[in-house]
């Protein structure tokens, strides 16, 4: 059955590449005939190709690393290594294991990327073969590089609860670590190129691959394009790009080969290298215990401690706050030209839109972090909690109230940034803070209720986690949308901003509380299977 399915998918992929996509693209391009799109394609295809290959390169580099870091499983390596499997075989085998699924992605995506150019430029069969082979080669080499990086990180971290925690935190930031420099590069490429005396993008493998594809189009085109026109743009010849790409790939393979033994010489991981001793409780936590005296205070404080000591939780929250801070800054910049000269109502609407997006972003990240993956670590922990009287209710209450406390700075910081960017009054700033806080608390309740109903624990690869995340995101977006429509109707009737914010944020709290109560009640019940 599996063989039949595999062959069918690959067969469909080939039909997709050779017949379906070309026919669709021909119809689409026919619609643009005689328009400026044609001229645009002719002039900008080298840049377009570089952008597309950059995207593909980042996807194939980041996603496998991020996915693998969500759970470190090196116990299996120990079994293989103890059975006389060579480290190089393991490295290569792990790479080969990833090829089918990513290969399928490339098989279906590449025709969509390349066909518009092959049709428009009437590229010969030989040229098309070179283009497709280049994409596949770059995909494979990037995947190999990604596999090497992933293996090295996993071996270094080791399989321990601390190693897993660091890995999950890294899986959140690895995307930022690669994307931010890339975006910086795009903005500062001109000045860096002027300083270095070369086009800065020429140092990257994705550029060499993109330029090989561009050269294939130029050399094998059927519309009379001259290669001389493009040498100034592309800087290097096709041969030069090919040599660079091949050299880079061979270097990576060579590096993997010589370092395989070292990479797979993993130790016991961070567990034995670092022992963390806890100091005295800080005043903030002592203050919580004073306000909530007795067992509830102890539960809440220990819940806060446990949550904030996990790097994966903190990195996720920082990621959310950064995004929430960036939104008003970027949108204010982007909207600047739109807002100038527009009526005041439009400007107010745009500002409101930004605030709503800020609230939604905080709600989603906080909901998924506090109420989703950070809610309960394992089924084994649940047994311990359930074995005490009303244990689940007490635990959930402590978790939720602890989350409400931790959300305070998360709501305040982006709101203050938005206030500075848009020049809000103190009252307006307070309203934004209350709105952001209130809707985020509602999101946490909602997501906690969904998780309590179908616990996924910290296994981010389980189907329960995927289902919970999807349901949480759709529920959050759905409730936000309905609240927004209700809020707009209120605004049309009366321009009371306070009322608008209240209507915008309250449904999330109400629905969240109901889902939470139901979820916790279900979690408290004894298992029947």
């Amino acid at each position: 059955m599996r063989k039949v399915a595999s062959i069918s998918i690959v067969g469909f992929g080939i039909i997709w590449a050779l017949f379906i996509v070309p026919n669709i693209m021909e119809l689409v391009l026919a619609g643009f005939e005689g328009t400026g799109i044609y001229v645009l394609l002719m002039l900008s295809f080298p840049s377009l190709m570089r952008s597309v290959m950059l995207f593909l390169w980042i996807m194939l580099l980041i996603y496998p690393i991020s996915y693998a870091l969500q759970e470190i499983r090196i116990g299996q390596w120990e079994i293989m290594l103890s059975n006389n499997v060579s480290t190089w075989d393991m490295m290569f085998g792990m790479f080969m294991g990833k090829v089918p699924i990513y290969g399928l992605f490339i098989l279906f995506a590449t025709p969509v990327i390349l066909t518009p150019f092959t049709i428009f430029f009437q590229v010969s069969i030989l040229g098309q073969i070179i283009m497709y082979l280049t994409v596949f080669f770059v995909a494979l080499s990037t995947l190999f590089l990604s596999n090497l990086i992933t293996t090295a990180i996993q071996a270094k971290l080791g399989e321990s609860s601390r190693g897993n925690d660091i890995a999950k935190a890294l899986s959140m930031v690895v995307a930022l670590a690669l994307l931010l420099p890339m975006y910086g590069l795009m903005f500062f490429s001109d000045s860096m190129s002027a300083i270095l005396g070369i086009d800065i993008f020429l140092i990257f493998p994705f550029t060499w691959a993109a330029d090989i594809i561009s050269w294939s189009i130029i050399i094998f085109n059927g519309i009379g394009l001259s290669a001389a026109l493009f040498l100034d743009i592309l800087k290097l010849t096709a041969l030069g790009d090919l040599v660079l790409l091949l050299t880079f790939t061979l270097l990576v393979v060579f590096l993997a080969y010589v370092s395989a033994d070292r990479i797979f010489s993993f130790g016991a991981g961070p567990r034995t290298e670092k022992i963390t001793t806890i100091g005295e409780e800080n005043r903030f936590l002592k203050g919580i215990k004073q306000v909530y005296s007795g067992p509830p205070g102890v539960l809440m404080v220990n819940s806060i401690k446990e949550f904030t000591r996990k790097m994966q939780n903190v990195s996720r929250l920082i990621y959310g706050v950064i995004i929430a801070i960036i939104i008003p800054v970027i949108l204010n910049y982007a909207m600047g030209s739109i807002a100038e000269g527009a009526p005041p109502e439009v400007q107010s609407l745009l500002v409101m839109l930004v605030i709503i997006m800020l609230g939604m972003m905080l709600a989603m990240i906080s909901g998924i972090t506090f109420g989703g993956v950070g809610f309960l670590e394992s089924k084994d922990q649940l047994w311990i909690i359930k074995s005490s009287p009303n244990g689940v209710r007490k635990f959930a209450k402590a978790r939720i109230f602890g989350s409400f406390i931790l959300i305070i700075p998360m709501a305040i910081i982006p709101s203050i940034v938005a206030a500075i960017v848009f020049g809000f009054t103190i009252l307006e700033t307070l309203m934004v803070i209350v709105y952001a806080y209130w809707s985020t608390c509602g999101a946490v309740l909602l997501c906690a209720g969904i998780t309590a109903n179908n616990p996924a624990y910290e296994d981010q690869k389980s189907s329960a986690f995927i289902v919970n995340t999807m349901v949480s995101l759709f529920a959050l977006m759905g409730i936000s949308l309905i609240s927004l429509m209700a809020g707009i109707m209120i605004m049309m009737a009366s321009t009371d901003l306070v009322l608008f914010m209240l209507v915008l944020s309250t449904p999330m709290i109400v629905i969240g509380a109901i889902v939470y109560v139901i979820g916790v009640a279900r979690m408290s019940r004894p298992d029947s299977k």
Partner: protein
Amino acid sequence: MSGSIDIQTVGLSKNFGSVVALSNLDLEVQRGSVFGLLGPNGAGKTTAVRILSGLLKQTSGNAKVCGFDIDSQRREIKSATGLLPETPGLYSKLSAVEFLEFIGALNDMSGELLNRRIDSLMELMGLDERQNDLLESYSSGMKQKVLVASTVLHEPQLVFLDEPTSRLDPAASALVKEIIEAMAKEMDTTFFICTHMTDFAEDVCETIGILNEGILNTLGSPRDIIDQVGAKDLEEAYLKIVGGQVDRSKLLSWRD
């Protein structure tokens, strides 16, 4: 041992789909006694413990634990009992003290009493010098000691221990044995221990039940069971009852 009964089951059964995990368990455990439930992997020991501690619903039958009905009085059962699960989930990002505070608070304990108990238990377990280190840096034996401490922290009337010595070295196992015996004798605490360590069971338990494929087919004191099957010790008796004795002539037959 007082005369009252802390565990009484009548026809207790549990099916997971077509798999019969527990079949018509009829059992009585006296207060202040130490009862051991032996059996091979998959015999139904953990299932029995989970039902009796109120974590799992039975398919049929009934039981009373510390005088409370397992169907309608789960909350009361949880107040009166302590549980050490087979695969417990520790909070790796809490220190031992913080984890015990957490468990104490779940059982409505706090303040000076809780703090004193935690300090005493940590000293007893030999972990007082590491009590403020995160549990992620503890060895599995040390973690198991913390878990044993967490189970008795709130002075339960009945304690369920599922494989309590599986990760412990001999010295630590001896310590757990002493704690069990002292609590049973001095405080009339009942212990219900699931284990497949026959020597531990033989030393500690007054009554032993042997569970095999969900059926309790042997019940009695260790001596009675040993005499019943004509064995020299409990391990031999156990192997005779559940099977699993090794045919030495076939040990290396896989090499042919």
